[in-house]
């Protein structure tokens, strides 16, 4: 197990280097630069432009700029946002809890509904529950996030008035953001109604962000379960007279979990991507929207730093996924 862990950690370093290179180059491949964009229709004199280029180091050869960037990372310094002149690190941590809170809720939603849906579908294969659940999953997977979100807002917030339109918290509550997690901070604040406001504001964004992972998890669970349910040992268990619940819930599910856990790990990437659209529509102040805006304004440092941090998160989550394999499947850790 230890050896396995070490090997997995070993892949971190080259992956990290690769991500830092990609995030650095990608934004620079886009035409235009932040200084030109800042000048807008007015433009600026060539002298001023050169002076600013030098000030920000953009006139240096690209490998030198990359070197400065890497040295910065190693010292924990992701640089300063071109747009706001504040440290990228600070901005990331100011915004990340919102994305994390939403992603965790969305993942919980996807799991709580997706796993049982997949199991029920697998056990009732070919019959109407299976068909209903799988076609619903297909619809959920195919719907554009933006459209789905607007639909929910117009109907549930607009017409019915059951949920708030956007944001994380009703404006009448004002309390310090201690952890950045609205569910925690609102409880701690002790203000009456604040916690319920936080929950209400989470409902629609969670549903929207969680819909695609839900669909994927449902389908993946179903196919993994089907494979396992067809195995000899399951047939044996049935022959021995074990209850369906015990068979499906314990023996079959446990072994079906491996591909499902893989999918969960990969869905973290989807959540980060979906967060961009969800955050925009629901005015959710997270990192997704932050990075997209930075790309538009060619804020090099924000894009580099933000992409790097997201990649790090995805790598860490997948590392945990792999560790979990080790626990679930003894064959893997013996290697």
């Amino acid at each position: 197990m230890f050896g396995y862990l070490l090997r997995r950690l070993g892949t971190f370093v080259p992956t990290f280097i690769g991500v830092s290179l990609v995030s650095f180059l990608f934004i620079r491949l886009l035409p235009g630069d932040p200084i030109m964009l800042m000048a807008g229709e007015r433009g600026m004199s060539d002298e001023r432009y050169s002076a600013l280029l030098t000030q920000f180091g953009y006139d240096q050869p690209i490998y030198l700029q990359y070197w400065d960037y890497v040295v910065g990372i190693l010292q924990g310094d992701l640089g300063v946002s071109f747009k706001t002149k504040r440290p990228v690190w600070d901005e990331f941590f100011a915004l990340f809890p919102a994305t994390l809170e939403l992603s965790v809720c969305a993942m919980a939603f996807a799991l709580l509904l997706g796993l049982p849906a997949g199991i029920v579908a697998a056990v009732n294969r070919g019959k109407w529950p299976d068909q209903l659940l799988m076609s619903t999953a297909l619809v959920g997977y195919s719907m554009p996030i933006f459209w789905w979100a607007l639909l929910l807002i117009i109907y549930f917030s607009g017409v019915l008035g059951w949920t708030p339109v956007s944001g994380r918290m009703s404006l009448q509550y004002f309390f310090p953001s201690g952890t950045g997690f609205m569910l925690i901070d609102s409880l701690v604040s002790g203000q009456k109604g604040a916690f319920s406001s936080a929950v209400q504001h989470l409902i629609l964004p969670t549903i929207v962000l969680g819909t695609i992972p839900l669909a994927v998890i449902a389908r993946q669970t179903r196919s993994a379960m089907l494979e396992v349910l067809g195995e000899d040992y399951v047939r044996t268990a049935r022959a021995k007279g074990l209850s369906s619940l015990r068979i499906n819930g314990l023996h079959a599910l446990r072994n079906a979990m491996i591909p499902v856990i893989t999918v969960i790990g990969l869905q973290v990437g989807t959540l980060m991507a979906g967060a961009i659209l969800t955050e925009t529509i629901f005015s959710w102040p997270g990192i997704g929207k932050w990075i997209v805006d930075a790309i538009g304004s060619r804020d090099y440092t924000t894009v580099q730093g933000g992409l790097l941090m997201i990649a790090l998160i995805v790598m860490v989550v997948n590392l945990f996924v792999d560790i979990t394999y080790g626990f679930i499947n003894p064959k893997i850790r013996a290697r």
Partner: protein
Amino acid sequence: MTRPRHFALGTLALGIASLFAQGAAQAAGTLVYCSEGSPEGFDPAPWTAGTTFDASAKNVYNRLVEFDRGTTNVVPGVAKEWTVSDDGLEYTFTLREGVKFQTTDFFTPTRDMNAEDVVFTFDRQGNTDNPYFDYVGGQWEYYNGMSMPDLISSIEAVDDMTVKFTLTRPEAPMIANLAMDFASILSKEYADAMMEAGTPEMLNQQPIGTGPFAFQAYQKDAVIRYLPHAEYWNGPSDLDALIFAITPDASVRYQKLKAGECHVMPYPNPADVAEMKAEEGIEVLEQEGLNVGYLAYNTQVAPFDNVNVRKALNMAIDKQAILDVVFQGAGTIAKNPIPPTIWSYNEAIADDAYDPEKAKEMLVAEGVDGLDMKIWAMPVQRPYNPNARRMAEVMQADLAKVDVNVEIVSYEWAEYLDKSKEVGRDGAVLLGWTGDNGDPDNFLAVLLGCDAVGGSNRAQWCHQPFEDLIQQAKLVSDQDERTALYEQAQTVFKEQAPWDTIAHSVVQVPVRSEVEDFRIDPFGGFIFHGVSLAD
């Protein structure tokens, strides 16, 4: 065994019920503005985005002179009067007495605003030795963009209540420049206190100004909170509080407005406007924007160096169709390079008639029948042009009728801005301009002056008669004299047609009906002083 289960179920039910419990209602006099984006910072001078100015300059600060709310007329701000020397080089401002900076949780001023604050405000932008010069990157975009470093020779505090600006050359628009957001007056006392505390960045993160609203808190990308400044020199606001709820998506802003979760919103989706107008409880305010959208020919490249060719092409383009298709009614046809909202707009000028027959004749007469040309279309939406590609397509169809074959080209925005400046550029470029200070010079000199060829003068047009007029107008202080000069300049422009002036967009601001006395700012800002909520 049943009791714990009942207990658990009961608690669960109660818990779920409590989820929907309402807390205290929002204070009735709190105005919520659904802003479209986040401010870059709260010290207005380093930044350029309108969003930033709404959150800072327009509501937290004042300037020496200001634009009368809803207009482009310059009126006294924290300077009660000023004189200009005969040679046009010295501007002396007498400050108002008793103007108080805001008192907040994080700062209590010990004195009123005085000349030191004014000097600091500009010194930090122009003087590299000022400790605050570099504090947020040192780029002072508008201070430089309006040529302040060349223009200002010195600024001194003559006494506590008097400040004198000495210029290097006469520049009549100077007064209008001082009404711009970058010239917002900061508190030197606060700046010194923050520098001493080792936290100079606070000047940009937690602002202190003399304006009607005091900063309370900012949750990044989410909410900005302000409280009215009880001692505001120009009459404290009636509101209990002002909140900016940052809502990036236009459809969602509309939903919030409908639900009463915000009272004022910017930049509606053009497609939603008709529904908004019909909606009870919402009013859509409209005003012509301080902008112009145009097609700039490259007047240095044949055959566009021939004025008859330019005139002919102008006559071949159907501007009304463009207005209907591209602006969906949210615009007016432009005949002059400045919008009607700016003084000296020459109403008497007649626009080029839409006459494709005549246009074709003229083109044939000039020997450019069957012309191939490019039209550059912007890839982004701008206040003066909601859909440049669509506009280019309409023009392409119109010009095809006069045997002109148009190829539409586009580049990514930053590249577009860069490449379109080139003197040898191949093609006519769609672009536009939003005014900075309500002065005609800000349009005519910046966009059509000889100095700007190869820069913001996309027509690469340098025409001596026009140039003489606008340079003369810079030197003269008397507005009537300047008006006469600019009117003539517009006549010359019309004769020479370096552009086809397309449209001035109409700014639409949906507000809830209980909002009283909100006025659209021609500069695109959102000003909440003087606004109240009906019960």
